């Protein structure tokens, strides 16, 4: 069982916190909106992704268990 990253794009405000915290998993478009690089990141990325989820100012990210 792995983890899956979920993004609510309409909540993204383009602050780029996720890119600073977990650059292997998140990037930004030219207009700042998040780009998900890896929807099911490897376990060594979980801590960084969880941090990105927690600090996202738009509360646009979630990390869920995937079947």
């Amino acid at each position, binding site marked *: 069982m792995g983890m899956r990253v979920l993004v609510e794009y309409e*909540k993204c*405000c*383009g*602050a*780029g*916190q996720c*890119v*600073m915290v977990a*650059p292997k998993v998140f*990037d*930004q478009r*030219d*207009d*700042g*909106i998040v780009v998900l690089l890896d929807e099911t990141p490897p376990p060594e990325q979980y801590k960084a992704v*969880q*941090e990105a989820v*927690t*600090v996202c*100012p*738009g*509360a646009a990210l979630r990390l869920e268990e995937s079947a």
Partner: protein
Amino acid sequence: MSSESSDQVLDYPLRAPSALEPPAEWAQLRQGCPVAHIRLPSGDKAVLLTRYNDVRQVLSDPRFSRNLAQDGAARITTNEGGSVFENPEAASLAGGESHQRWRRLINRAFTVKRIQALQTKIEAMANQLVDAMVKKGPPADLVSEFAFPLPVWVIADLLGIAVDDRDKLAYWSNAMLTMTQFTQEEVNRAQMEFAQYFMGHIAAKRANPGDDLLSELITATDKEDVLTERELLMTGQGILVAGHETTSNMIGKMMSMLLADRSRWEQLLANPSLIRTAVEESLRFDANMGFGLPRFISEDTEVAGQPLPRGTTVVCSMSSANRDESFFEGAGEMKLDRAPNAHITFGAGPHSCLGQALARTELQTTLQVLLKRLPTLELAVKPEELPRREGLLVGGIEKVLVRW
């Protein structure tokens, strides 16, 4: 409100015992009066939120705007020109879809990729400022010799403004934001001079585009026809007033907090990989953030189980929210390795600070450069004697005397 304190109206802003300590009322309000009645300097009434979840809820609610230039909203001061929150022109960009379009356009300049590309320049600027401090010798005022110039140099570079014009830009920025230190006449004149200068600058960039943000905005604008000349001006002014003094003050406060208990500085010297989390913790721990963010409640709502009727003006204290013990473990302690750190110093939701990646990079670069160049740095005054800046909206320290 049902408690006995419901009749009590606090004068706002609250007064803290020193530049680095929180007002005593915060903890009491969070505990017993999360929706408190306050009187603003104008005499108008408003409501103060101090808990993390409440502040976050209201700031994230897209229905509520910071625009106080509308009927029934409280005025912050009685100054004839009003505060930055009462500017109707800026407000036209502040709500709904037009805000989102504007924001996505301006975001182009503030993506992490763009800011990281700027980092080498910021580092060079920081080193140049330290060179001048070292040449003059200690003691130095970290505010006037480093923290005040650095962000305005960065913004000048971002907007493609010549090095020779940076001092003018710094003065206008100071006058437009620090309402209490200038007469209304000086504020008006600064606004006019800046507008005149910036309109000329836009014209020059239109004729001769460079690789700066302003040129990019103009080209994008010409292509998509989104921003008018006037909106470009409001954007330039917004970037200046939002990005200069706030960041300058934060550099001064961050350095004061880290040096006030020098074991913090030593921890960073021993382990520079803590720089990123130390910057976040400094942002969270800053008790002297200033006024907070106002919101005008345009529809009946509820906060902390209490009704907030339409027409209420709310002041959100992010500083108090950041010290909320029910959200942050050991909220009253500064822990340089705290992670995750979901402080709301930059606000939350669709209006959260546009330039936060830039601010973070400036703060991180400040630490990198000062730790490397001036490892023996220490405060030359007692922390409780650090003089507060008497501005109304943005909290800061007037002077941070250091030696090394």
